[in-house]
């Protein structure tokens, strides 16, 4: 009896399955509509980098809306193609990053990927992008995201949009030597961003003839810096560079100000969002750091080629998020996604996925020239998958709780 009932159920299931399968087969269309192009997007909207990753995800959502309101991108066939941006969150966990990017490339079959927020996690995704020959545009600043640390060459399929810590280090070193400093101390977070700051600042500082007399790290969650302050004081340095993101950057700046009120402080461009000034208060006064232009829009010259793009993005983002504050990180996402969208115009409808992906990559490497974005004027090349120069950053000094332009002439 039992077996009978079982087989009946099985048979029913099979019939149901077949019916469903039949339904799933769409009737043959008379003329296929233009294919929808897919962009994969992955950021750390939650987790330790949520302050960075969330505005990035929101920017991607905003662009998705804008493009499709405009009817999509025009391909070489002259037709408008809808663009679908598939958005994932990796919680700043390397495993999740690799899973998400793998899923985007192999399952969702996107043409190009924008991923991800953190440097460490971006480095983790390199093998996936390289092996599957899909361009990945990262929103992280560390150099090893795009270049191989052994050979120094660029990874073929990796690009990134933020200004690097090398650019920031060049500003900081130039400033410090201009004001007559000879010995500096470096404090940095013990993570990918902090150690990248350390390496780049050190290289630039030594090239500018500065002597790094003390370097010390701390955890992202630390609140107590007396050990570092004792080291700074005892080392006799004349300026302190802090390579961190808020909130710990604010606490470190406060600690320096408390122990040594007159010590000049430079910071990296990781502090270019309002939380730094909000959480550091008076300690932020007088600190100097290079910033992406989007955070200091009032200070950007009117003839700057980025100015229209910047103003448009700020207006759009403010409207889309009901007035959330602008951060440089959303800007990194805007650059990455917009570049990807633009590169889709080189994609042949009907070409194989491999060809489409290769077309996007080649477009990025060769056609992104003097491209005005939020983070700077991009010029990608085979030997430079970041495409930005030192002038993509604006040197800023905090005066009365606000970052104002601090050009070389005023040093």
């Amino acid at each position, binding site marked *: 009896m039992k077996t009978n009932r079982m087989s009946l159920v099985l048979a029913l299931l099979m019939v149901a399955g077949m019916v469903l399968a039949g339904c799933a087969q769409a009737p043959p269309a008379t003329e296929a509509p233009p294919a929808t192009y897919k962009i994969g997007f992955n950021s750390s909207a939650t987790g330790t980098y949520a302050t960075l990753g969330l505005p990035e995800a929101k920017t991607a959502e905003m662009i998705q809306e804008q493009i499709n309101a405009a009817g999509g991108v025009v391909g070489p066939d002259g037709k408008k193609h809808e663009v679908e941006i598939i958005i994932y969150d990796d919680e700043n966990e390397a495993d999740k990053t690799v899973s998400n990017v793998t899923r985007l490339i192999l399952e969702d079959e996107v043409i190009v990927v924008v991923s991800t927020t953190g440097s460490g996690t971006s480095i983790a995704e390199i093998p996936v992008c390289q092996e599957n020959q899909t361009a990945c545009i990262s929103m992280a600043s560390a150099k090893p995201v795009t270049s191989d640390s052994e050979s120094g060459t660029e990874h073929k399929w990796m690009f990134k949009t933020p200004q690097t810590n090398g650019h920031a280090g060049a500003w900081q070193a130039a400033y410090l030597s201009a004001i007559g400093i000879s010995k500096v101390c470096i404090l940095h977070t013990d993570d990918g961003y902090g150690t990248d700051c350390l390496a780049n600042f050190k290289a630039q500082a030594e090239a500018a003839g500065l002597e790094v007399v003390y370097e010390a790290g701390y955890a992202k969650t630390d609140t*107590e810096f007396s*050990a570092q302050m004792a080291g700074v004081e*005892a080392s006799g340095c004349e300026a302190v560079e802090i390579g961190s993101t808020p909130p710990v950057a604010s606490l470190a700046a406060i600690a320096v100000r408390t122990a040594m009120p007159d010590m000049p402080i430079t910071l990296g461009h990781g502090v270019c969002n309002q939380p730094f000034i909000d959480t550091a*208060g008076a300690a932020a006064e007088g600190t100097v750091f290079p910033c992406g232009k989007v955070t200091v829009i009032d200070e950007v010259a009117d003839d700057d080629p980025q100015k229209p793009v910047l103003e448009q993005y700020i207006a759009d983002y403010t409207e889309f998020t009901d007035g959330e504050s602008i951060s440089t990180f959303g800007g990194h996402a805007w650059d990455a996604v917009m570049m990807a969208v633009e590169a889709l115009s080189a994609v042949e409808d009907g070409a194989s996925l491999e060809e489409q992906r290769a077309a996007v990559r080649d477009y990025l490497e060769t056609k992104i020239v003097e491209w005005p974005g939020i983070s700077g004027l991009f010029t990608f090349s085979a030997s430079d998958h970041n495409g930005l120069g030192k002038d993509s950053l604006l040197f800023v000094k905090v005066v009365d709780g606000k970052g104002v332009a601090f050009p070389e002439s005023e040093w």
Partner: protein
Amino acid sequence: MPRIPRSKLARIAAIIVLTVAITALVIGLGSRKNLQPKHYVQLILDGFRGGSIYALMALGYVTVYTVTGIINFAQGEFVMLGALISISVYNMPLPLPPAARLVVAVGSSILLTTLIGIIVERVAIYPARLSPTVTLIIITIGVTITLRASALLIWGADPYVLPAFSTLVLEDHIFRFGGVTLQAQSLWIWGTLAVVLVLLYVFLEHTITGKALRACAVNRRAAQLVGINPSRMSMLSFGLAAALGAIGGIVMGPVTRPIYDMGLMLGLRGFVAAILGGLVSAPGAVVGGLLLGVVENIAAGVTNPTYKSVVAFVIMIGILLLRPQGIIGRGETGGEQ
């Protein structure tokens, strides 16, 4: 004059030798970094500040552990809740002067967090009270995940600020003497710790409920036999632990930038402090907390500050292996539990 047994003499000698050796090592390492006496004073002073927070957290662990036998992983989340709730209340547009607003904020934050602690105990811990240790540890981990995610939902991922208690703005008074600095908030932190200890003492020694709690900690079965309701005591211990955590979170608020995920590392450090103190002794917890703060700071100061948290955990493992009863030695021993 009492006669000192030889073994005790030997032990004292060993302690002296050890202290001298460690001091020499510290000074030796410090001199390589040009550290001067004022730096050591600063390190110790700031170590006591951080250590006071660890002490408050450790008291929370000890309260729950002695009464219920549970290591409450959610202790760090109570600290986070205390800090963030007080900030939210402070920022509410109440028609009060800032000082009064701060008082309201502190009071309501402690009350709310205590309530959350009690709810946690009733909903998650009490139904599973008879389960093995592993199960209870995992339950408190589940509670931790839930509380942290709720905080993310409510407060987002941005750091917040609580004004310094003395100035009611972000910037605190700073006292300077001979190259050593001291923030006024440190005095508030020490004062709070002292007041908490006195209140705790009065509560445990001079009230019926407090005595019942202590009885429960000494022997649950016996306490039940004399008519103490262990269920109520378990609830009380969680409420008390939550309140202690909230107080710690509030007083440290102005010197940190409270954020939804601050509980994890703080919780672990507070835990190390509790272990240092033997896990079952309140005075031990306080000594353990203060000591951890100072040792951590000095070790970080004379070596590489990066290893600060390594120091904490190395100390913890060392204590567990060499003196599981804690540094002041009144606690139970790990091997004979």
